[in-house]
C-alpha cells in the first residue's frame, strides 16, 4: 500500500492579475521506505509539490493522502500535529533558529510535546550522534560550518521519528565533499525505513533514487 498518494493535484497562484499554474494535474504514489528524487528546472513546480506534500500549501484541486489521511481535510491544529508526527523538513539554507544552540535547535519540535527534559536530552543526543555532531551540542549555530548546520537541520528533521523526510535542495549551498556526506546520511535513513523525497538539480543523486520524478512547467514527464 502506498504511503503517499497524490490524486490529480493542481496548484494555481495569483501573480498580479495573472493566474499561474505551478503544478498541473499530477497524480503519483510513493511507497513506504522509497527514496524519491524530484528534478526539474527552476520554476518547474518542484518546491510547490514539496510544500503541498508537507501540509503547508493546500492544492487548488485534487487530494494529498498520506498514510490514508486526506491531509487538507484536517483542521489547522490537526494539520500542525500531523506535520510534527509524520514529516521532517530539510531546506537548502538550513533554516535554523540563530539564537538557539545546536542542541536547542534539534529540540525545537519536542518543545510542544509531552516528553520530560531528560527524555528530550536523550533523543537529541541520539539524533546528533546519528549526524556525528554530538560533541558540538552546546555550540551556537553561527559557530558551525555550512555542512554542520545542514546536519543539525537533518537531526531536527529526525527528532520526532517522522515517516517521511522532505528535503528541498539540501546540498545546494554545500561543497561536493560535504554534499556527499549529507547524501550518505539520507541513504542511511532510507535504509532504516524512512521515506525520502529529495528535490534537487543534481543528476548524480539519481543513483540514490528508487523512483525519479521529472517536472516541467508543472507537469510530470518522463521518470519512472
Amino acid at each position: 500500500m502506498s504511503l503517499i498518494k497524490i490524486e490529480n493535484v493542481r496548484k494555481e497562484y495569483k501573480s498580479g492579475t495573472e493566474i499561474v499554474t505551478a503544478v498541473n494535474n499530477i497524480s503519483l504514489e510513493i511507497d513506504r521506505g522509497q527514496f524519491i528524487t524530484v528534478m526539474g528546472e527552476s520554476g518547474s513546480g518542484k518546491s510547490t509539490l514539496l510544500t503541498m506534500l508537507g501540509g503547508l500549501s493546500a492544492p487548488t484541486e485534487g487530494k494529498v493522502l498520506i498514510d490514508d489521511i486526506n491531509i487538507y481535510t484536517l483542521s489547522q491544529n490537526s494539520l500542525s500535529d500531523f506535520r510534527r508526527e509524520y514529516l521532517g523538513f530539510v531546506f537548502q539554507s538550513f533554516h535554523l533558529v540563530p539564537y538557539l544552540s545546536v542542541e536547542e535547535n534539534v529540540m525545537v519540535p519536542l518543545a510542544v510535546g509531552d516528553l520530560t527534559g531528560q527524555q528530550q536530552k536523550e533523543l537529541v543526543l541520539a539524533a546528533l550522534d546519528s549526524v556525528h555532531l554530538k560533541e558540538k551540542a552546546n555550540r551556537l549555530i553561527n559557530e558551525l560550518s555550512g555542512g554542520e548546520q545542514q546536519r543539525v537541520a537533518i537531526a531536527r528533521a529526525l527528532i520526532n521519528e517522522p515517516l517521511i523526510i522532505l528535503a528541498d535542495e539540501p546540498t545546494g549551498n554545500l561543497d561536493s565533499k560535504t554534499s556527499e556526506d549529507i547524501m550518505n546520511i539520507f541513504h542511511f535513513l532510507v535504509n532504516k525505513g524512512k521515506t525520502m523525497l529529495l528535490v534537487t538539480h543534481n543528476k548524480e543523486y539519481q543513483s540514490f533514487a528508487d523512483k525519479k520524478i521529472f517536472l516541467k512547467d508543472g507537469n510530470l514527464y518522463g521518470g519512472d
Partner: protein
Amino acid sequence: MKIYSIAFQSLRRRKAKTFFLIIGLFLSVASVVTLITVSANINKSVSANLDEFGANIIITPKSEQLMINYGGLSLGQVSFNNSQLSDNDLQKIDMIKNRKNLSIISPKLFETVNLKGKDVLIAGVRFSKELKLKKWWVINGKSPLSANNLLLGSNTAEALNIKNNDTLVIKDQQFVVSGILSNTGSQDDSFIFMDILMAQTLFHKPAKISLIEMAALCYDCPIEEIVSQTASMLPMVKVTPIKQNIESKMMAVHSFERFSLGISLVMLITSFLMVFANVNASVTERTKEIGIFKSVGYRNSHILKIILTEVISASLAAGVLGFFVGISMAKLVLPFLSMQGINSFSSDFTTLPVAVVLSLFVGITACIYPAIKASRLDPTVAFRFI
C-alpha cells in the same frame, strides 16, 4: 525544553532587540512613576500649605431665629434656644475619626467692652493657633508672649490712638499692647485680640467659647466627612464647611493631578507605539523563524505563546526597573521644583504593582496585533523567505 524556553533564549541572546523592547516600556513606566510620585508629593505639600492658609470649617452654637411681624410691621429677628460652646467641645472634636486631618483647631470668645467712650470688640484666642491659621497677618511689634499682652487690629488702634507698648486697662486688668496688625481689610482690623483664658476669666465666662475655626487637611479625605463626623460628635452645634475655600483648595490640588495624568497618557501612548513598532518589526524580521516553527508542527497558539512570553517577560522587567528608576528620578527632581513645604520625600510602594500592571497592559496591548498576525502567518508566505 518548553515553549517559554525558546522565548527566554530569544530575549537572552537577541540582546539589542530585548534592550529596545524593554527600554520602550521602561521609559514610559519610569516617567509615569516619576510624575505620580512628584505629583503626590506636590499635592501633599500644596494641600498642607493651603489648609494652613485659613479655616475651612466653622463651628458655631446652634440657635434658632424667627422673623417677628406684628400688625404688618416687621420687628426684626429674634434668636432663641441659644446653646453655647465650651472647652468640652474641643475635647470631643479630638475624638473624631479623622482627627489627624485637622491641622488647626482655634477656639474664640467674642465680647464687647467700652474703652475711651467707644464700643470695642474683644476676641479671646489661642495665639499659638491663631497666628498659624492667619499667616497673612503682618504684626507691627511683637506677637503676644503672655496673657497680659494684646494684639490690636489697625482700625481699633487708630480709633483708640494706641501704639505699641502702650498700656490699656480692660475691666480693671492692665494689658500691654505688644503689636498692632497691618490693615487686613477684614473684620480682624476692628478687634482687640487677647488670650482666650484671660478673656474667659475677665468676662466671667469660664470654659465658654463663641466659635471654633478649624483647618482640615483634605488631601486624602473628603471635607464633608470631617464635617459629618464633627456634627455627629457635637449634635448641639452647627458645623459649616466653607465651600468656596475648600473647592479652590481642591481645584489647586487636582490641577496637579490632571497635569500629571495628561503627561502620563502622552508617555503611555508613545510607549505603546514604540512597543508596537518594535514587535511588528520583529515579527516581520522573524517570518522565516515562524516558518521554521510551523514546518516542525507548531500550532498558531504556540507561536502566539512564544511572542507573548517574550513581551510579558520584558514588560515585567520594565515595570520593576521603571518603578525604582521613577522613584529615584522623583527624588532628584523634587528639590528643583522649589515648592514651598516640600521638606520630606515620601514614596509609595503600592505604586510598584501599579507600575508592573501598567507595563504589562501597554506591552500586551501593543503586541497583541503583531503576535496574532505572526501566529496566523500563512506557512507558504513564510516559506517564500526560506
